[in-house]
């Protein structure tokens, strides 16, 4: 099993590269990465969904996941949690779908986003 930056490579599923974080936790969330964040997943292709599975603990926030992914918050343009705009403060639960877009795909100014905030 290949290891890099805190993730264990679990293998390919449905043609996508699936990674699982090596920390424990109460369950898994799926993270979808876009633009330059795709580089976080070696072997990811621009024309496929780039996703990884990560474990979360009770009370983990989106901000923590972003930190674990080694992404700077200032490089993030949009976050969608279960298809809703979200702040980094929202808490995650097993089964959640999280999508993160980089600032280069920002067809926006972040301060105007009305984000869901727990």
């Amino acid at each position, binding site marked *: 099993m290949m290891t890099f930056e805190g993730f264990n490579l679990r293998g390919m599923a449905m043609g996508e590269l699936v990674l699982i974080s090596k920390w424990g936790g109460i369950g898994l969330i799926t993270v979808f990465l876009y633009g330059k964040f795709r580089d976080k997943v070696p072997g990811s292709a621009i024309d496929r969904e780039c996703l990884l599975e990560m474990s979360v603990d009770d009370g983990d926030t989106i901000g923590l996941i972003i930190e674990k992914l080694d992404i700077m918050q200032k490089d993030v343009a949009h976050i969608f949690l279960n298809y809703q705009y979200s702040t980094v403060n929202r808490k995650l639960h097993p089964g959640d779908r999280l999508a993160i877009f980089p*600032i280069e795909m920002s067809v926006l*100014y972040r301060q105007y986003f009305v984000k869901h905030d727990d």
Partner: protein
Amino acid sequence: MGKFILRLNMNDLSVKKEDVSENYRVLGGRALTSTIISTEVNPTCHPLGPNNKLVFAPGIITGTTAPSSGRLSVGAKSPLTGTIKEANAGGIPGQKMARLGIHAIIVEGQPKEKGKFYILRMTPEVIALEEAGELTGKGMYETNELIWKNYGEGTGIIGIGPAGELLMVNAGISCNDPENGPGRYAGRGGLGAVMGSKGLKAIIIEQKGLGDIAYANPELFKQGQHKLAKGLQEHAVTGQALPTYGTAVLINILNEAGGLPTRNFSSGKFEGASKIGGEVINEWSKTRGGKVGHACHPGCVIKCSNVVNHPDGTFHVSPLEYESAWSLGANCGIDSLDDIAELNRICNDVGLDTIEAGAALGVAMEAGVIPFGDGKKAIELLNEVGKGSPMGRILGNGAAFTGKAFGVVRVPVVKNQAMPAYEPRAVKGIGVTYATSTMGADHTAGYTIATEILSVGGKANPLEAAEKGAMAKGFQTATIFIDATGYCLFIAFAILDLPDAFQGMLDTINGVLGLSYTAEDFNRLGAEWLALERKFNEAAGFTKQDDRLPEFMYYEKLPPHNQVYDVPDEMLDSVHGS
């Protein structure tokens, strides 16, 4: 150079120059086309009959050196919606028309000889109608090629393909880009059919000897130009995202927002989204050649346009925009970007609006004519339009007509015009704009979407119905003002965020007109022009009951949000205070 209005009477094939009144002098673009239509056209006339008029008007600053300012507006009573209509396009002819001194072209009447087509040829010396001859019946690629061969490279071309000649109500009007591609369309509302009904195949403006625009206050203009250009370059959307990924960057974003209409508006999420968005187009520009950061006319600094190549590196289509990638892609369940590019190429050639064409295909797929997701069959079907076969005529007359032909209930139209690429059940405010715009379902009629998904110029929560009315009105007035100026609507991203860029935009207009418009005028004039359009529609028989979304959206829940459209009618009615 003194400005003039050109009146083209197709009854007797005469061309007359008229002076520009002071009232008309300060108008341009959509403000001018809608004012002329309101003044001269009987709202109850048949849009394809002799009493409709077709008006072409460059924007107030079109033809100047202001950034991203080359738009040309086209107006008429729409044969698709029955409302007043303005559609505008980039490309090169608008700038040339303005530099020839043309304030507007008004086309009226109809030639006696049915099926006969003409071209209007313009140079600084000659303005004349000529028989279209061999151009008649030709697709837009060949038409443009022949015109450059016969009249010189760089000639500006405004033309219609077979769909317009055959009077199909999804026919658009093509403007050529700097490489002579026909892909810059004043697409919406069937204005190509109005042009066809006038027997006009093309308007061409030759390159040689064009003059310059007269500036009332050149210093002020220059200052404004500088401020605006700086803002457009600094803003993340206009300076970075649009030139890098083009508008199709929105495919993945809307998909994650659950608002990407999929398989004829039956879902807000498309599993093939990753294959058809701006990231792939950007990647292909490196691996196949082609281009991102393409300008649709000289002087655009945003450059949202692109060139998409075949796998073998040869040219396929330009541009491939968000709305087209969505309508011909996700909306048809098609996830092959090559097939989508081909469908787009067919639209450009035959002369169709891509949004309406994709919506019509989606409805035909819903009816089982061909399966969702089958790109090759979709290409075959769309090719029928140019042949004028019965199936082609059904599709070429738009989504609502196709729905009637096949008994489909889920037809995503307002006032007969297909909705663009933002699902109203996920993005409630855009639904208000679709419902209440003077143009039928139209995303450019009021940029609510900019605040809601793109987060520009205001705050909004897509899933909350409250207070959408006032917001939609505000954006409709802002939009109509920009449409009058000749600026590309995408400057809105920067000017609504950056006060300096906004002032720069006003300075350029004041510099050209010698006026002193302020931000208040921006809203006041926008509201006045909007009221004019509403009045035309009311006189054409439209009431508030027409300002509604299609019924299925009120009872079918849309995944993944599982929401229906729940903005109350009273709120829709409050937009225009009716």
